[in-house]
C-alpha cells in the first residue's frame, strides 16, 4: 500500500470520527475527502474483496439486502454499504470502514449497491465479480436525464469490468439489451408468465425497440414495460432465462409463494415480501448468488428468511396499530404499490408523502405518470397527504377522482403520527425517499425500535 492510500484512510477515519463527535451523520463526506487525498483509494481497498454489485432503477436496496441474507445464511464473511452511501464517496467510506488502518480487507466479500449514474465510475474501480442490473425505468429525469443515458452509463461501467458475471433482467428490454454490447458472461432471470399482471401500462418507459425503434409486441406483460417483449421488425426478443419464476402459487399482504427454476432444478420459494416487483428482486438476487458460486438450490432460497426493512414494506407497531412503510421513487414503483394496495382485502388508511429534495427528484411531475386513477377507483375512504409538496399530492389525488373532502393535508409529521397511531385499521405510509428518512426516524423513535439496516 502506498503512503497516499494510508493518508486517505486516515483522513476518512478522522472525518468520520469528527462527525461522530459532532453527532452528525453522513457517509459521503469522509470518502469524498479521502478520495481527494488518494483518488484510487476505492480501487486499492477493493482489490482483495469479492464484490457483488447491484445497480438499476428499482429494487437496488431490496435486492442487496436479499443477497446479504443469502450470504448470511451460507455463513459467508461479508460487509455491505447502506443505500444512502451508493455513490463513489459512500462506497469509499464503506470500504475504509471495512479495512484495517493499513488497507487490508477485514472481510472476504461485499454486497455493494451502486447508484446507476455513479456505476460507470465505481464499477471499474472496485472490479466486482458479479453485477446485478435490476431494471431500468424512468426515474428522476432532472438528475439522470433520459433513460437511454442511464443505460449507456451502465454499459460503460460493465465494459470496465470484462471479467464480471452480469445478471440481467430478461423481461426488461432496456436491461436485457446490455448483453449484446458487452463481452461478459451473462445470466438472465425473469418471469416465465404474466403472474397476474398483464395490462399494458398507461405510459410505457420503453414502448419502442432499442435497436430499430419499431413498436414492441408482447407475448405477456408482467408490469410496466416488463414482460416477454418481441420486436416485430428486427426480431430482438426477451432472451431465454437461467433463473425463471414459472408459477405463482399464492400471494398475500406479506409474501408470495412461487415456483422458481434454475440449473435444471425446480423448487417452491416463499418470497418473504409482497408484490410482483419483489418476485423479480428475489429472482435477480438468486441469479447474483449463483453467479457468485452458490449452488442453485441454496441461491433460490435467499428471499425466504428475508426481513423487510428501512422503508421497503417495513412494518412498525405503534400502540397496536400496524403501520407499513412503502418507499416510492418513480411511476413504475408507484404503480406496483397501488396494485398491492388494491389487492388488500381489508380496510386501511393510506398516507402519501411527497418531497422534492434532490434525492426525491426536484421535479414532482412523475406523480402524474403514476396510475392513481386505479387507486381512486378502488378506494373509498379518507386519504392523508403530507410532505414538502403535500398540496401537489392532494391535487394529483383530486384529479384522480378522490373527492376533495376526503383529502386531508397534514403537514406536521408529529400530528400525522398522532393521527395514524389511533387507527383501528392498518396504515400504509407511502413516502418518497427523503420523506421516508424523516418520518421513519420519528416513527422508529415512537416505536422504540432499533435501526435495522439502511
Amino acid at each position, binding site marked *: 500500500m502506498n503512503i497516499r492510500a494510508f493518508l486517505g484512510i486516515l483522513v476518512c477515519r478522522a472525518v468520520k470520527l469528527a462527525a461522530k463527535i459532532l453527532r452528525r451523520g453522513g457517509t459521503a463526506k469522509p470518502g469524498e475527502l479521502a478520495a481527494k487525498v488518494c483518488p484510487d483509494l476505492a480501487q486499492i481497498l477493493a482489490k482483495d474483496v469479492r464484490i457483488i454489485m447491484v445497480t438499476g432503477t428499482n429494487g437496488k436496496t431490496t435486492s442487496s439486502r436479499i443477497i446479504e441474507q443469502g450470504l448470511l445464511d451460507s455463513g459467508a464473511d461479508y460487509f455491505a454499504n447502506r443505500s444512502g452511501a451508493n455513490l463513489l464517496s459512500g462506497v469509499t467510506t464503506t470500504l475504509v470502514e471495512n479495512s484495517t488502518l493499513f488497507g487490508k480487507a477485514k472481510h472476504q466479500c461485499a454486497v455493494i449497491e451502486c447508484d446507476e449514474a455513479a456505476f460507470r465510475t465505481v464499477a471499474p474501480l472496485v472490479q466486482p465479480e458479479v453485477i446485478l442490473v435490476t431494471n431500468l425505468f424512468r426515474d428522476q429525469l432532472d438528475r439522470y436525464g*433520459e433513460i437511454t443515458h442511464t443505460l449507456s452509463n451502465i454499459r460503460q461501467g460493465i465494459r470496465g469490468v470484462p471479467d464480471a458475471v452480469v445478471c440481467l433482467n430478461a423481461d426488461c428490454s432496456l436491461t436485457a439489451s446490455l448483453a449484446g454490447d458487452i463481452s461478459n458472461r451473462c445470466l438472465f432471470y425473469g418471469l416465465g408468465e404474466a403472474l397476474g399482471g398483464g395490462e399494458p401500462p398507461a405510459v410505457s418507459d420503453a414502448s*419502442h425497440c432499442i435497436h430499430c425503434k419499431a413498436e414492441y409486441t408482447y407475448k405477456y406483460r408482467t408490469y410496466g414495460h416488463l414482460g416477454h417483449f418481441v420486436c416485430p421488425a428486427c426480431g430482438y426478443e426477451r432472451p431465454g432465462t437461467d433463473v425463471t419464476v414459472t408459477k405463482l402459487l399464492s400471494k398475500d399482504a406479506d409474501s408470495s409463494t412461487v415456483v422458481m427454476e434454475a440449473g435444471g432444478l425446480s423448487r417452491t420459494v416463499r418470497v418473504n415480501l409482497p408484490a410482483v416487483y419483489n418476485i423479480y428482486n428475489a429472482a435477480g438476487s438468486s441469479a447474483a448468488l449463483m453467479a457468485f458460486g452458490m449452488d442453485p438450490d441454496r441461491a433460490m432460497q435467499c428471499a425466504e428468511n428475508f426481513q423487510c426493512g428501512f422503508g421497503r414494506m417495513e412494518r412498525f407497531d405503534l400502540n397496536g396499530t400496524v403501520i407499513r412503510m412503502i418507499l416510492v421513487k418513480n411511476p413504475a414503483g408507484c404503480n406496483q404499490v397501488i396494485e398491492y394496495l388494491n389487492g388488500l382485502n381489508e380496510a386501511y388508511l393510506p398516507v402519501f408523502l411527497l418531497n422534492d429534495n434532490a434525492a426525491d427528484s*426536484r421535479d414532482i*411531475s412523475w406523480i*402524474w405518470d403514476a396510475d392513481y386513477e386505479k387507486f381512486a377507483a378502488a378506494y373509498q375512504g379518507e386519504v392523508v397527504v403530507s410532505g414538502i409538496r403535500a*398540496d401537489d399530492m392532494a*391535487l*394529483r389525488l383530486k*384529479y*384522480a377522482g378522490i373527492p376533495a373532502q376526503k383529502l386531508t393535508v397534514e403537514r406536521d409529521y408529529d400530528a400525522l403520527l398522532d393521527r395514524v397511531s389511533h387507527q383501528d385499521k392498518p396504515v400504509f405510509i407511502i413516502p418518497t425517499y427523503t420523506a421516508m428518512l424523516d418520518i421513519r426516524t420519528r416513527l422508529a423513535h415512537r416505536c422504540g425500535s432499533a435501526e435495522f439496516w439502511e
Partner: protein
Amino acid sequence: MELNICHLYPDVLNLYGDNGNLLCLQQRLSWRGIGSTVTRLPIGETADFTKFDLFFIGGGQDFEQEVLLSDLSKGKAESIKSAIADGKVFLTVCGGYQMLGRSYTTWDGVTCDFIGAIDYETKGAKDRMIGNFAFQCGPESGGSAVVGFENHSGKTYLGPGVQPLGTVLSGSGNNGEDGTEGVRYLNVFGTYSHGPVLPKNPDFADAILKTALDRKSPGFALDPLDDALEHQAHDYMLKRLGL
C-alpha cells in the same frame, strides 16, 4: 356540449407527467357537466383533424425524435399547420412546443426542420435550464402568474412580431435571455412548463377551455369551480420562488 380532444403522439411524447394536462382538462369539463373525448393519435395513425376542437402535444426523449420527424413528414405536419390556421386550439409543451416552430439546431450545429407552423426556432445549449419557474400570462391566456417546472436544453427565439405566452417572473423561460416564455399565436398556447402545467394553474387551464368552447358556441361561459386545492398548490410555489 362536448369537446373533442386529440392527443398527438401519446406513444412517444409522454414525458414528465404532461398527460396530466389532458386529465385536468377533462376533469374540469366533467365537473361542469361538459363531456369530452380524447382521441389518441400515435405514430402511424391518421385522422380527420377538422373534427377536433383541441390538440395536445407533450414533450419527449431525443431517442424517439427520428421516428417522430419521419411520421410528421407523411402528412401530419400539413394537417397540424392547417388546423392551427383554422384557429383550432393547441396546448403544446416543451418538445411539442419546439416542434411547431421552424427548426431545431443542436449545440454542435446540426439543424433539423420542424413543422414551421409558427415563426420561431430553437437552438440547443450545453447546459439545461431546469427548475421550478413562473411567468405572467396576458389576459388572453388567463391573466395569472403560472407556476411550473422547466427542464430543457433548447433555447427558443421567437420571430419578429410573434407573441410569447407570458413574461418570465422567475427562471429561464424560452431562452433565459429575453424574458419571454412560450408562444401565443392564434389559438396556440405553447410553453416550456411541465408540472404538469394545468392542474396548478386553473386560470390558464380555463382560458384554454374557454377558447375552445367559444369557438363552438360563441360567448360560452364557464361555471366557476372550487379551486381551493389548486390555489393552495399554486400559491405555495409562488411563495417558494419569492414572488
